[in-house]
């Protein structure tokens, strides 16, 4: 049991990273428009995030340094500041979207307008970050997010044409009524969603919060190898559900309510209750993950004391950052801006900034000053380099593709 609870950091990171509000809807939308023909991107994203999360977990365990520490150390103060500005903007937007997402889940459960729930969700999230121990937070929300497994059950009960899903998945090309640029635009959005930088900010900082040491290297690795593939599996199940129910009916999913419909149709009211619980846990967990990440990245750039392993007064600037981010994000959601649209955009912007985060991780994982005998092997380096090339291509293509396809319309 203790071993099992040891991997909840990976599960929370992955649930909050893979199946947060933006990805929930993006996966369902992609499933409803492209069937399973973009499944390869999710698999690629799982592999990529595993490679880099493993490196950043290893760095955290061996040197007790988290990712944004390394970003400034290797990119220098100026490029580091550019990355910080970009990341911070994306993080603040994402916090807004996640708060909105959790409130939308409550709306689905109660029928009461989501705007009413927004202040309550934001306050609860802040209170949890202020008072609850890191490990408790990670266990409660990581495990509650597992309710999303209902997507897999529902898919099975919907009784899809497995042969057809498989055929879509093995034929990676857009369906006849979709264009190639749109196809690649969504490929980038999915890859950006799978490899969002805050996943490694959070995962490595979480490792430091949990006081990982060299003895925990196997725990770190287990976290990566269980958490992220699980997140990927859920993403695929969401897309498959949408492909089964919505693709034949020509419905293009654009809301959280539509996104959970296949589960309700497949698994009934119990399924509906579970999926709403899962969505709430995932988005609320993501709120915590992203808001904490904003504190982590700012503090780690400037070298401030951060973390929940000290009393709040001893990490005053860290907690103040989180408080301000939550307040600003709440104000943003209350303007009634569509939270789902906000993440769709921030996913693509995040994709454009990926190399700036992952290059320093790759470099430090090779540095004996930090890693002593635990530097990258040839396997990690080969995969890491291949992904660096891919990420550079993605980052160059992301924004032009967004403009060319009018954000995938």
């Amino acid at each position, binding site marked *: 049991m203790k071993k099992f609870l040891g991997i909840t950091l990976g599960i929370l990171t992955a649930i909050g990273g893979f199946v947060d509000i933006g990805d929930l809807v993006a996966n369902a939308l992609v499933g409803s428009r492209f069937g399973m023909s973009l499944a390869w991107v999710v698999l690629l994203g799982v592999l990529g995030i595993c490679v880099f999360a493993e490196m950043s977990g290893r760095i955290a365990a*061996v*040197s*007790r*340094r988290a990712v944004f*520490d390394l970003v*400034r*150390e290797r990119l*220098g*103060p*100026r490029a*580091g*500041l550019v990355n910080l500005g970009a990341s911070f903007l994306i993080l603040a937007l994402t916090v807004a979207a996640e708060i909105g997402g959790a409130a939308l889940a409550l709306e689905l459960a109660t029928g009461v307008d989501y705007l009413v729930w927004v202040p309550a969700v934001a306050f609860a999230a802040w209170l949890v970050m*202020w*008072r*609850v*121990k*890191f490990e*408790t937070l990670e266990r409660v929300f990581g495990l509650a997010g597992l309710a999303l497994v209902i997507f897999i059950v529902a898919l099975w009960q919907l009784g899809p044409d497995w042969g057809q899903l498989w055929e879509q998945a093995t034929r990676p090309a857009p369906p006849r009524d979709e264009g190639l640029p749109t196809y690649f635009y969504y490929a980038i959005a999915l890859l950006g969603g799978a490899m969002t930088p805050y996943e490694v900010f959070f995962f490595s900082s979480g490792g430091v919060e949990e006081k990982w040491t060299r003895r925990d290297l196997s725990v770190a690795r287990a976290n990566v190898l269980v958490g992220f593939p699980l997140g990927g599996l859920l993403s695929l199940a969401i897309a498959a559900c949408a492909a089964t129910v919505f693709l034949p009916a020509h419905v293009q999913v654009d809301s959280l309510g539509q996104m959970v419909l296949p589960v309700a149709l497949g698994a009934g009211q119990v399924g509906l209750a579970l999926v709403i619980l899962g969505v709430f846990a995932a988005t609320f967990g993501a709120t915590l993950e992203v808001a904490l990440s904003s504190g982590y990245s700012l*503090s780690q*750039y*400037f*070298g*401030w*004391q*951060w973390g*929940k392993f*000290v*009393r*709040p*007064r*001893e990490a*005053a*600037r860290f*907690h*103040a950052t989180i*408080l301000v981010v939550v307040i600003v994000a709440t104000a943003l959601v209350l303007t009634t801006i569509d939270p789902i649209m906000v993440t769709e955009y921030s996913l693509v912007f995040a994709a454009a900034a990926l190399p700036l985060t992952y290059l320093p991780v790759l470099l430090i994982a090779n540095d004996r*000053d*930090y890693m002593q005998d635990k530097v990258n092997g040839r396997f990690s380096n080969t995969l890491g380099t291949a992904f660096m090339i891919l990420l550079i291509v993605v980052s160059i293509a992301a924004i032009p593709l967004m403009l060319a396809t009018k954000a995938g319309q």
Partner: protein
Amino acid sequence: MTAARVVHAQLHLLDRQVVRARDGRLVCKVDDLELALDDDGRPYVTAILMGPLALGPRVGGVLGRLMAGAARLLGATAPPRIPMEHVSRIAGAVHVGGDLEPPALEHWVRTHLVEPIPGARHENE
């Protein structure tokens, strides 16, 4: 006697995290290094400099000036320094001994914003 240790300023010192050797608390980044000249006119490192007045000039541009300007507005005249003799280890982080004043901003945020909120002084549950 072993050969004298060699490090590179940019690679091993600048922008590294400074931690308090006693308990691992995070102090600051190595924002810059202070140099003095020895009897033969050769420069050597006397202290680690921290804070916006050290980082601002390195960032440069409008942002860098803004950073330094904000610090001056709050009454800072020179960046806080940690003398090199307090440095006990240079590795993935720079470990320093001695007692350090909390930086001005941390102090201000602590007393004016964080401590008034209930629970600020307690361990998390």
